[in-house]
């Protein structure tokens, strides 16, 4: 492990030291580091910050598996996974720039505060040079801000809010996962195909920032295909029982219910909605439908039979048939016994992308890495051709539209892919109003 372990913004002013009551002994070394946590030994440390307690602990556990696998592959272990399908061939399976990859883990608790504390400890104590992971946008934005200030790279895990690469975008932060706008843009044409263009939508939205951007995006996209929006209702956080919000939906004049919820909220609201028999009934002469814009495997498992036939979008699915996906599913499945989730895939891909960028840049310096990632085009990581856009550090790639499978063959076979929406349909301008108000700023190497 390296012995340079902490941000030093220049030397301390001697006055401050005197105030603390310490004289400055000559023993203080002033190593002139070019950037935070410059790995000097034979190893480099990455920090994987995932929820290990709280509602998203299982998702965090899956992310951790993917990180473990990625590190194994980077160090030349296992079958190499997506290293062999990745379009960039810079990585040799000998660590990163010849340094063996080590990792530390921490618990975000899905709270901004705890996540930042955990990331701080990785940066300050363990000398981590890159932080990755996370399962919510609040945490992603908070940790991204910290990494920007501390001068390390943040490779976001699962975060879907427009803000992460919109108004809260940061130079040191990168997102591989798709976002609410992309979900909506990919879903809308499919919804039009499934349910026609004369529909009235009723939104139930988790009352926090992710929910709002999701609601804004999907409402705009569905209105663009001719649907009307009857109502947008905000639901309190972590509410177990959604009955009082769902009960009025049937008689509201709407014929589609859009649930802008994620995780446990989504499981509960969907279960409640199905229980109320919404899908068994008709409104405006049409079958009442439910849409869940953002899907995840774990949510689908939690909702059980209730997801049958319900459309939504995903960043990735293990049933895709490209070589990257196959290679990843094979090595993940062999090691752990079940297929990976989309959270695992994005974390795995992010780790590889980071390692590759360092290798291509020839330096761990965050500014070099930023330069190498900006505008980087790649393929073979499971999502087809992908671009890391320079303007906002968002990946642009195909989006998967799925729906709950009617007759699942096994416990992992929960959704079927309806369509792979090509990247062209989900691309937007960097200054799109839903993403406006932020600035990347300059990359910060920390020194």
């Amino acid at each position, binding site marked *: 492990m390296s012995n340079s372990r902490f941000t030093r913004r220049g030397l301390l002013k001697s006055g401050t030291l005197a105030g603390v009551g310490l004289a400055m002994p000559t023993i203080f070394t002033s190593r002139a580091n070019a950037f935070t946590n410059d790995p000097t030994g034979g190893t480099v440390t990455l920090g994987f910050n995932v929820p290990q*307690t*709280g*509602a*998203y*602990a*299982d*998702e965090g*556990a899956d992310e951790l598996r993917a990180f473990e696998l990625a590190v194994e592959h980077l160090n030349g272990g296992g079958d190499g996974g997506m290293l062999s399908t990745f379009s960039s061939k810079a990585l040799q399976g000998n660590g990163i720039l010849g340094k063996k990859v080590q990792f530390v883990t921490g618990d975000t608790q899905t709270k901004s505060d705890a996540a930042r504390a955990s990331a701080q400890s990785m940066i300050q104590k363990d000398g981590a040079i890159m932080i990755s992971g996370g399962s919510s946008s609040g945490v992603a934005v908070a940790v991204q801000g910290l990494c920007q200030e501390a001068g390390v790279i943040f490779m976001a895990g699962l975060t879907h809010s427009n803000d992460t690469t919109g108004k809260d975008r940061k130079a040191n932060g990168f997102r591989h996962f798709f976002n609410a706008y992309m979900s909506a843009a990919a879903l809308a044409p499919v919804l039009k195909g499934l349910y026609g263009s004369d529909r009235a939508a009723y939104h139930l939205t988790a*009352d926090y920032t992710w929910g709002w951007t999701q609601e804004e995006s999907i409402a705009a996209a569905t209105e663009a295909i001719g649907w009307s929006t009857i*109502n947008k*209702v*905000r*639901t*309190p956080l*972590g509410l*177990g*029982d959604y*009955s*009082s*919000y769902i*009960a*009025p939906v*049937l*008689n509201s004049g709407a014929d589609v219910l859009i649930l802008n919820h994620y995780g*446990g909220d989504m*499981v*509960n609201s969907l*279960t*409640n909605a199905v*229980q*109320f*028999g919404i899908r*068994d*009934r*008709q*409104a405006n002469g049409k079958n009442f439908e439910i849409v869940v814009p953002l899907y995840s495997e*774990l949510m689908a*498992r*939690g*909702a*059980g*039979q*209730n997801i049958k036939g319900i459309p939504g979008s995903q960043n990735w699915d*293990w*049933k895709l048939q490209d070589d990257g996906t196959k290679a990843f*599913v*094979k090595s993940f*499945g*062999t090691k752990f016994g079940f*297929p990976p989730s989309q959270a695992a895939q994005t974390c795995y891909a992010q780790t590889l992308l980071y390692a590759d960028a360092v290798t291509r840049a020839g330096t761990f310096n965050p500014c070099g890495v930023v330069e190498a990632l900006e505008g980087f085009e790649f393929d073979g990581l499971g999502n087809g051709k992908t671009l890391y856009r320079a303007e906002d550090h968002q990946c642009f790639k195909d989006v998967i539209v799925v729906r709950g499978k009617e007759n699942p*063959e*096994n416990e*992992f*076979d929960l959704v079927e892919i309806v369509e792979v929406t090509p990247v062209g349909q989900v691309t937007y301008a960097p200054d799109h109003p839903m993403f406006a108000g932020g600035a990347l700023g300059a990359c910060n190497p920390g020194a």
Partner: protein
Amino acid sequence: MTEQTCPVILAYALVLVGTGASHRMAGTMDAIILQILNGLDKGAAYALIALGLTLIFGTLGVVNFAHGALFMIGAFCAVALQALFNASTVTLDPTKLDFLGNPAKVETPYLVSWFGPEMGASIIDWSVPLAILFAFPIMVIFGFVLERGLIKHFYKRPHADQILVTFGLAIVLQEIVKYFFGANPIPTSAPDVFRGSLDFGVWLGFEANAIIYPYWRLVYFAFAALLIASVFGFLQFTTFGMVVRAGMADRETVGLLGIDIDKRFTLIFGLAAAVAGLAGVMYTPILSPNYHMGMDFLVLSFVVVVVGGMGSLPGAVLAGFLLGILQSFASMNEVKSLIPGIDQIIIYLVAIIILLSRPRGLMGRKGVMEE
């Protein structure tokens, strides 16, 4: 001051209802009936949890932060039974392949192989109601063990110590459940008969879809009412119950009468655990159980108990229903558009109003947990 309370609450409810009415006259009546149904259902859940909690408070004087965990354990009894029913023999089917290209595993539940496909499937289908039979003895015994092994040593300790030890216990219990069942919610569905919903509105002369209500929630409400009634009946009509009620009123005197209070306390704890557990079992189809559901209910259940008044069983039930109904009304769009965010805080707001206008909650007795 105290006599003003009921009017205050009623007035508050009327304002909420009234705001709804003024906004959209048409379709208001059905919306109100719908929210009353919702409120009763929510209230039933709150009342059930609060009932056990207040029983422990009132008789044993213990602040039990692990009560939510008991509710959670009950829910996981249903999950465990479902898993037990689904215990399967595994055979390999070479005609099908799994995701890695190996022969797929085919699981046949033992129940299916023993009772045949139909009978077996319907037993599995009924796992939640059957879990009541399974959960009751488990919860009672669990309550006994807990009281004998831990809680009884804390009767004479300060409330702060009780909070610390029961909070620690709650964490330990939920972490154990998480270790075995994971953090993800686990779908547990009601029997097929109770799927879907009932169109109430048509009976009352409304148009179709105006008032629909899921069958299972109606079952839950009936179950809760029955359980509450049996607890009250038990305390009202048995000698044991009489002693317990006397103990709630004046613990020392009952102790002086030479009645062996200890044994009864153990039983009370078992009873409270069972009530919480059964509430948890029946709630699983409404809320897919997860390991932290107990903590999520903890704060709410304390609010309900205190609003009802410490040491009052009817108070707890009344407060449960009151808060449930008010919460349902507050989540109506008409009300929310008038007072943004009201549904986020209604429970706490009502708690504050009631506690300020009635010093000891709705039906609390003087001196209980006031020092």
